[in-house]
């Protein structure tokens, strides 16, 4: 079973991991402030189309990523407005945003691209080995012969973890998700923190969407996201709202995903196990993990609860 530790399998794992964890980081930031964003799948979808179109039309992956981040930020701001200012039910609004995202993406794609014979393509990013590190046998080859976006992912995981746990602003953000009244009584502007978290988190969600065409497919299809947003939402619970644990979780999920991908391309396996059962694997795995993890996980105490200074409780 040398296959299980095959270098190309693990390299693929890192690629599959990247969009998952980026989306998950965005959701962690949002949830840490006390807002639950169940529209994540829709926002990531919009991010993916924005990232694709931005790259395709402006010819620059950087601009593509920025477009995606803007799109994610705007949708997330919409959620913030309903959840924070209007104190609407966050789950219902989130579901609305989810469907809105599902609708907007093919619409904008068709609007920009029109009806064409062959779908437009962008170049997926190619690997840029890190000097020295990339030459470390095995570990280096897996981790450091990747493309820029994967490196960016490593950086963002560390940066978000650092932000949340090692900066004053991170401390304040977490306090809003745990006990907004305590935060408020210490002079922290809960509303502003929550809005900020939603917008910044939205940038991440959009970016996660942009990863998909840039890293994996090079094209946009309606089912590009394929539940990854929901998976990221679960990863938040799996990672107990901590970036580093979520990172491990994302690796695990991505490994399962990459594994099914690789296995199904092996001719002898395709005979033994129908590929559909391999495709199911990540989702079944996610459910099993959730059963194990859910009862122990402790969400931010004020998650989904609107804050109103003058109301009791």
């Amino acid at each position: 079973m040398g296959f299980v530790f095959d270098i190309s399998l693990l390299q693929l794992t890192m690629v599959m991991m990247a969009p998952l964890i980026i989306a998950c980081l965005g959701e962690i930031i949002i949830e840490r402030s006390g807002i639950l964003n169940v529209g994540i799948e829709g926002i990531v979808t919009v991010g993916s189309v924005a990232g694709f179109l931005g790259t395709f039309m402006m010819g620059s992956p950087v601009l593509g990523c920025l477009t995606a981040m803007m799109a994610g930020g705007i949708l997330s701001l919409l959620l913030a407005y309903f959840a924070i200012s209007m104190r609407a039910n966050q789950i219902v609004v989130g579901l609305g945003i989810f469907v809105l995202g599902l609708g907007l993406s093919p619409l904008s794609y068709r609007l920009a691209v029109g009806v064409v014979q062959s779908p437009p393509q962008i170049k997926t990013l190619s690997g840029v080995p890190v000097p020295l590190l990339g030459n470390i046998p095995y570990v280096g080859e897996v981790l450091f012969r990747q493309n820029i976006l994967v490196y960016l992912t490593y950086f963002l995981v560390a940066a978000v973890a650092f932000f949340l746990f090692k900066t004053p602003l991170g401390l304040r953000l977490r306090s809003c998700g745990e006990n907004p009244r305590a935060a408020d009584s210490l002079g922290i502007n809960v509303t502003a923190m929550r809005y900020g978290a939603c917008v910044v988190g939205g940038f991440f969600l959009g970016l996660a969407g942009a990863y998909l065409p840039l890293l994996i497919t090079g094209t946009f299809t309606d089912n590009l996201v394929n539940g990854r947003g929901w998976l990221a939402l679960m990863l938040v619970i799996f990672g107990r709202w901590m970036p580093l644990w979520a990172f491990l979780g994302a690796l695990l999920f991505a490994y399962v995903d990459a594994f099914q991908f690789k296995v199904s391309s092996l001719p002898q396996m395709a005979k033994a196990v129908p590929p559909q059962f391999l495709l199911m694997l990540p989702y079944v795995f996610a459910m099993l993990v959730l059963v194990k993890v859910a009862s122990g996980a402790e969400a931010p105490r004020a998650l989904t609860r609107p804050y109103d200074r003058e109301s009791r409780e």
Partner: protein
Amino acid sequence: MKGAWSEEDRRHAAALAATYAAAAALALLAAALFILAFGGSIRVAFATVLQASLGTWGGFAQTLNKFCPLLLGSLAVAFGMRGGHFNIGVDGQIYAGAIGMAAVAFGLEGLNLPWPVFVPLGILGGVLAGAFWGLIPGVLRVRYRVSEIFVTVMLNFVALYLVDYLANGPWNDPLAGDAITVPIPKSAVLPQMLPKSGGHMGPLIALAAAAGIYFMMSRTIIGYEIRAVGDNPTAARFGGININRITLVIMPVCGALSGLAGAIEVSGFHQTLLLGLTGPTGAPNYGAMSILIAVIGRRHPLGVILAAAVFAILMVGSDSLQRSIGLPGSAVFVFQAIIVLTVLYVEARRQLST
């Protein structure tokens, strides 16, 4: 008891009508913008939508055929919401129901049953399979406190690939191509209501189900308990209601409703089991639409019937727009979301001002 409307009822109804009028106006405005963006003429486009969906018998039949899964799926969401449960798994449950129907159809093929026996049996198979698919998140919620939102979403994908497997593997019809099974036996096909134009009996069954849910909610003790739990679980518990038991009723019923939709899709519409019956990864995405129709219909069977009818028209109409000006079918999602957000906005405003 019926009595005349009181002043308050009238004011309430007027506010409601105004809310929906505003929401519809915004959605129409968005629609007009899309149509212009896609280079169509607004007047022609709106005429096309109505003509395509209601203007011909064939179109009308198509609209009815779409209405059926939309109504059942939305009922499955609305019913759960009434009890405080979020069922995002309509797609998966539709697939489960479709598998159940197909399994009965293929499994009992040799018995040569007459249709009045065969069709109900098949539909029962679908309903049970859907109920089972709904029971899983119920059990996980009660046993492990796992949110039903996640489990229902994940089960969508599991069911999707299950159908993918069945339609490509054991039940595949090599002549028809990928991801499609051989046709179900003739005697397992749901009779047609509009035989010339291809409208099946499904919508009647769906309406009956809506009536059943309405009756259950308003006239049975369990329905009352479900509404109580959905409104305030703490107070319900103080009133002696066992919330776990309610969960274990709600979720399978949600599944059964969607499962019924899936069974009808196979037995009445496609007459075969195929991928692309519904979402979550492509059109038609009944699951996503059902969520918002349930919200727009205020989680009430009557409201859901109306909203489902409107969106069935829009779905069929937008199909024709897709052909004529290339407007993708997913535009309907955007209209839905706009309506939902507008309604939420108006209601939140009202809440905040009291």
